[in-house]
Structure formats: structure tokens, C-alpha cells
């Protein structure tokens, strides 16, 4: 506790990362292809009748969430991000969810007569 942690910059970390990059390029292309495919799928599925509007919206949102996940995970490197970033995003996620959900509840729990 007495010794302050060493926080001088470490060179090797970035270099190693650069080395890994070349391996990722193929992955990026595959993800790009998947995204385009999913877009086509979304368009197609929107013309399929799933029984109700709600069902159609849910399907489309699931697909969108999957695509968004891919973008975030691979393109935005969330797959290999630091814990701190996850925490920031976790709280952000909780708060948007609260915004959506609680507003929704407040709306649909009116004074009844």
C-alpha cells in the first residue's frame, strides 16, 4: 500500500495489438457481409405476416439488436475492451432502459375510474 503502483507507459502492449490486427481483417469482412445479409433478411421478414404488428416489430428489433451487437462487439472492439468501458456502458444501458420502461409504466398505469 505504501508503494504507489507503477503507471509508466508500457510499449509492448500496443505493439502486440498491432500484430494481431492483420489477423482480424478477414473477420471484419465477414461481419460486414453478415450485416448486409441481415439487412436483407430484415427487409424480407417485414413482408412476412407474423400474426400481429407487435410480433413483426419484435422480430425486426431482435435482428436489429443482433446487428447492433455485431457492430459494437467486433467493429467497436468491445470484444476486447477494458472493464471500465463495460461499466460505463452497463450503467448507460440501465438508464436508457429505465427511461423507456418507467416512462412506459407511468403511461399505462393511469388513475382508474
Amino acid at each position, binding site marked *: 500500500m505504501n508503494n504507489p*503502483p*507503477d*503507471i*509508466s*507507459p*508500457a*510499449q509492448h*502492449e*500496443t505493439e502486440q*495489438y*498491432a500484430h494481431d*490486427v*492483420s489477423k*482480424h*481483417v478477414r473477420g*471484419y*469482412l465477414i*461481419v*460486414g457481409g453478415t*450485416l*448486409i445479409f441481415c*439487412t*436483407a433478411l*430484415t*427487409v424480407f421478414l*417485414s*413482408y412476412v*405476416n407474423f400474426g400481429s*404488428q407487435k410480433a*413483426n*416489430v419484435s422480430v*425486426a*428489433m431482435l*435482428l*436489429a439488436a443482433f*446487428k*447492433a451487437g455485431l*457492430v*459494437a462487439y467486433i*467493429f*467497436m472492439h468491445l470484444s476486447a475492451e*477494458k472493464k*471500465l*468501458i463495460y461499466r*460505463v*456502458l452497463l*450503467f*448507460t*444501458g440501465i*438508464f*436508457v432502459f429505465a*427511461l*423507456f420502461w418507467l*416512462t*412506459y409504466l407511468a*403511461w399505462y398505469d393511469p388513475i382508474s375510474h
Partner: protein
Amino acid sequence: MEIPYTVTARPDTGLWNAKIGIWLFLASEVMLFGGLFSAYIFLRLDAEPGYWPHGLLNVPVGTFNTAILIASSVTVVLAWAALKMRQFARYKIYMGITILCGVIFLVVKLGYEWPQKYVHFGAYIKSSALEKYEPLLGNKHLLAEGLPPRVEITGHLHNHEALHDPKIKEYEIALDPVYTDPTNPKMDRPHFLYVPPTEKIGVVQKADVERATMFLPTHNTYFATYFTITGLHGLHVLAGVLVFTYFWLPVGSKLYRENPEHLANRVEVAGLFWHFVDLVWIFVFPLFYLL
């Protein structure tokens, strides 16, 4: 003392400054679009049956734009990867493509899609008069199918003067295909390909009309949200394009010669922003174009 960790990561956090900066900024952007999307949810859930239109936007064009954005997302990571591998020429190419994609997106959006809406016309029929326009609306058929009613007649306005001239008592509308054959089951759901208004003119009495305007933000809450969200999204695209251009121009080369890692970091940060813009569009596209 100089500000540390502008290029290299601080070991105990594993992050360099701008990386954390951009993620914090993106967190706030999530909340910003979160606010707008919550508006979308509530306006849509609150809309009376028939008052949240479907199939008014041009799906092929929208799909094309989506693909463009996705492609640009791919090229921007490739540009960054090229920098990481110190291949400057490839960086230039990929970055060039990214910028181009951004520009195409904006041109399609602002130069084609939005203007198409400004010239389209819609007239909401008063509930008391819906019966009268049944031949154009086909609500009995929709009711039987369990679908929401049509309360609006859309198309191209033939007599533009009618908008301003109180002496003209009716709107002459070159009808959209739905209204020419309203009971055809094929017309119940939107189509993939955009079908332009027909030659057939429908005449709607102003006295029977609740509200009639071009497809502007004022037309209904659907277009209000559409223009606001895509407008704000468009501003983000524009910002991204400007930043990329800045890194693409000689400024980038100079920085590359001085400190390639610094440029790579900056491109990564700008790229994160760009992916986020793409990510927002991934939700905007189905919510407005398809559903």
C-alpha cells in the same frame, strides 16, 4: 508537466485518454437517441388506429442507404487496421471510400428521399365523412381482415392552388395505388418496390378534411419523428464525414509521419463514432421504413 497518455495507454486503466473520452461521449449519445426513441415509442403507442402510417417511405432506397452505411463501417475499420499495420496507401484508399459512402448517404437522404416527401400529399378525412370515401378507403374490407382502418388519402396534389386559396373547395389528388383498388388484398400491406401515384384523380372535399398537408414534419407525429431523428442522424453523418476528411487531407499525412500511432488512435476514435452512427441507423431503418 505535460498531459500524459495521449498516445499510449495508462497501464492501470489500460486506456489512452481519447479512447475513454469517446466512449463517454458515446454513452451520452446513447441517452440522446434514447430520448428520441422513447418519444417514438410513446407517440406510436398513443396514436389512434390508422394514424401511424406504413409503407410511405421508399424501401429500396432505404435498404441501399443501409448497405452503404454498413459498407462504410467496414472500410473504416479496414482503414484503421491499415494504419495499425503501417500501410498508409491502403489507409488512404479505405478512408476515401468511407468518406464517399458518407457523402452518398447524405446525398440520397437530403437530395432524394426528403424532397420526395415534400411533394407528396395527404388528407386526413374527418371521422364523420369516412363513410363517404369508403370507395377510396376500403375500410369495410380492412375491418373484416382485422387491420387498422385508413383515415387518410394520399397522392400527388393536382391543384396546388387549393392549399392556399380558400375559394377552391376541394383537393384533386393523383391517388397512390392503394386508393385505386382499396379492397384488393394485395394492397393490405406495404410493398417493397415504390409505386408512384397513379393517373387517377380522387376528389376530396375540403369540408370533409380534418387536416391536409404535404408530407412535412407538420403532417403527423410519424413524419415529425421521422424528420427529427433522421435529421439528427444526418447531422451526425455529416460530422463524421468532416472529421474523416480532416484526417484524409494532408493533415493526416503529416501526423502519420510524426507519430503513426497517434493517427491510428485518432482514426480509431473517429471510427468508433462512425460505428455508433451506423448502429443508430440499424434501428432507425426498420422502425421507420419497414414497420
